[in-house]
């Protein structure tokens, strides 16, 4: 479903992503786990076509992301740590806007909005201006925006960072819901218990390189839990993560 091969991204002085390869199978949640600055966001941004890789290939549902970014964009939904919304638009206007940007027919956009509003229980405030809404409500709009075009592939980059407990639960609940809907999900985070709860398979990334990759069971290995395993693999290379 998602195949990443030898992906490398060099900025002026640093190599943010260094020869990364992994595969996300249809309907699974794949966790890309690493500390801050490990290259998760850069990898996600290359998958979501915002950055061009220096080398390597990305294939999403047989679409070559590097060669055909526009084709790729209509099959992916992206939720990132940055939850920017247009404050002066209402929730419905926001969704209409993105629906049109995804080149959907007006009739379809209307139907899809009704569907999402029901699914995420947003009926009470769908026509209110975003500036007047609570954080939790805004978070739902961010989710709704990402799935307005009903993409089969979802990319989550630190989706719970900076959220309070309730808003974070909304996101995690939605990710589970998406799995039930057979979406293919790439999920990057540094919060291990979230990953352990959600992911089918994971990869540890550190300093731009994948250090371990496999099923949840394989990743945990002899360790007590995913966090311990993470500290073992990643912390060994990164002093500040050294525990005991």
């Amino acid at each position, binding site marked *: 479903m998602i195949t990443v091969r030898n992906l490398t991204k060099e900025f002026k002085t640093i190599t943010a992503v260094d020869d990364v390869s992994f595969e996300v199978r249809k309907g699974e949640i794949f966790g890309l786990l690493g500390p801050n600055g490990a290259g998760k966001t850069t990898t996600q941004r290359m998958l979501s076509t915002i*950055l061009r890789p220096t080398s390597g290939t990305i294939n999403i549902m047989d679409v070559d992301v590097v060669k055909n970014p526009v084709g790729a*964009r209509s099959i992916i939904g992206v939720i990132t740590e940055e939850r*920017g919304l247009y404050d002066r*638009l209402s929730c419905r206007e926001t969704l209409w806007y993105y629906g049109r*940007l995804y*080149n959907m027919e007006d009739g379809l956009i209307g139907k899809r909005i009704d569907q999402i509003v029901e699914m995420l229980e947003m009926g009470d405030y769908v026509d209110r201006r975003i500036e007047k809404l609570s954080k939790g409500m805004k978070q739902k709009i961010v989710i709704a925006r990402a799935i307005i075009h009903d993409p089969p592939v979802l990319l989550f980059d630190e989706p719970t960072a900076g959220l309070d407990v309730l808003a974070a639960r909304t996101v995690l609940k939605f990710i589970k819901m998406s799995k039930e809907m057979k979406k293919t999900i790439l999920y990057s985070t540094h919060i291990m218990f979230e990953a352990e709860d959600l992911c089918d398979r994971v990869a540890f990334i550190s300093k731009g390189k994948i250090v371990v990759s496999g099923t949840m069971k394989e990743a945990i290995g002899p360790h007590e839990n995913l966090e311990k395993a993470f500290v073992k693999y990643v912390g060994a290379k990164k002093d500040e993560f050294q525990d005991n």
Partner: protein
Amino acid sequence: MNFRIIKTVFKKEVIETFRDKRTMIIMLVLPVILMPSMIIGIPALTLQREVEISELPSKIAVVGYNATSDIPDIATGLRISSLHYFLNSSDENLENLTAQIRELNESEEDIEDIIDFFENLHFYHVDTLDDAMELFDDGQVHAIVEIPFDLLDLEDRNEIVNITVYFDNTKTRSRFAYTRVNLIVSDLYTRSRQQEVLQERGLSQSEIEYVIMPSFTYPEDTSTPEERGGFILAMLLPMILGIYIVTGSMYHTIDTTAGEKERHTLEALLVTPPSKTELVMGKFLSILLVTMLIIIVAMLSLVISLHYSSEIFGGIGAVSFSMSLPVIIFLIVIFFVLAVLVNAVEMAICFFAKSFKEAENYITPIIFMVLIPAIFLQGLSPEDMTLSMFFVPILNVLTVFQEVLLGVVDPLHIGIVIGTSTLYAILASIIAIRIFNREEVLFRT
């Protein structure tokens, strides 16, 4: 190029802008309040002040010749009387003066004017120039007249009489005092003196009148009200509208470019299918619309203000103003061309900035791109304009604009300006799109 996408982006940006109080204030309140207050308020205040001052008496120190000893028995017109009045502004003296004026068979109305004039002159005799200067510096007198001590001797010998008037050109009341004194010295005194001398030389009254007959210049302005209105407009408009073009949609431009970065909405936008060119086009058109709305509101406000200002100041040298429809259409077209260029440059700069504040810092100097040419052009008439001026970006638009306001319609100039400006605008737009396409600019940290 997907026009539905461009339209979608355009519509969304316009909705957002119209819901933004800051932009609306700049768009509507400023032109509606500022323009009339500039065009009506400032001249009205100045005028009122001048009228007030002109009604106040002028205090004048007189140094030198002391006429108090000479009884005003002079029959030769107003010469010594007026000088005496310098020194003795008493009621008795005024009556004397009035009587003499009456003898000259002036009309009652003229007499009133003359008496008014003299009543507003208060003279104080001061012994030395130094003393007078002290009073002058203290503001107790508004001007000093220095008359030779031996005035009468000089007159007897038919020598030149030098009368010096000291005044301060930077002070309104001092200028008024000078004007009043000057009227007595160079007009009344000189003329009566000429008459006297010629009489002594044995010329008859009719010969004298023939020799010293005053010549009057009747000013007849050949410019039409449109031309005069155009001249004032040509002075004001390029500057005002130029400022509006730069600042009018500034917040909107920043909001839709650097603002998207600062509010973190950019990433969500970039993962949608539209090309960056389509996004830029939609945004750019919304900026242009806002600018043009502001320009139109500003122009309407200006036209109305000028109309009222000419009604208010109609009698006092103001211009009556009229603007024909073709001129208005031309102005809108030419400002559209300028707006395209300026807004494209602004957009390119704002895309580069990573925050609202940074964009504001970058964009502010752009105002000089318009202000400097506008100042350069002030007071320039069409014949001063060289062909090369019509090729310089921004300057060319302001130049052809001024030309048309002054009544010159030169198709070659207009063609060059529209052609070159379109070219510059396209270049600036391409640069804006290029900048928006650079990932290191989009994710500058």
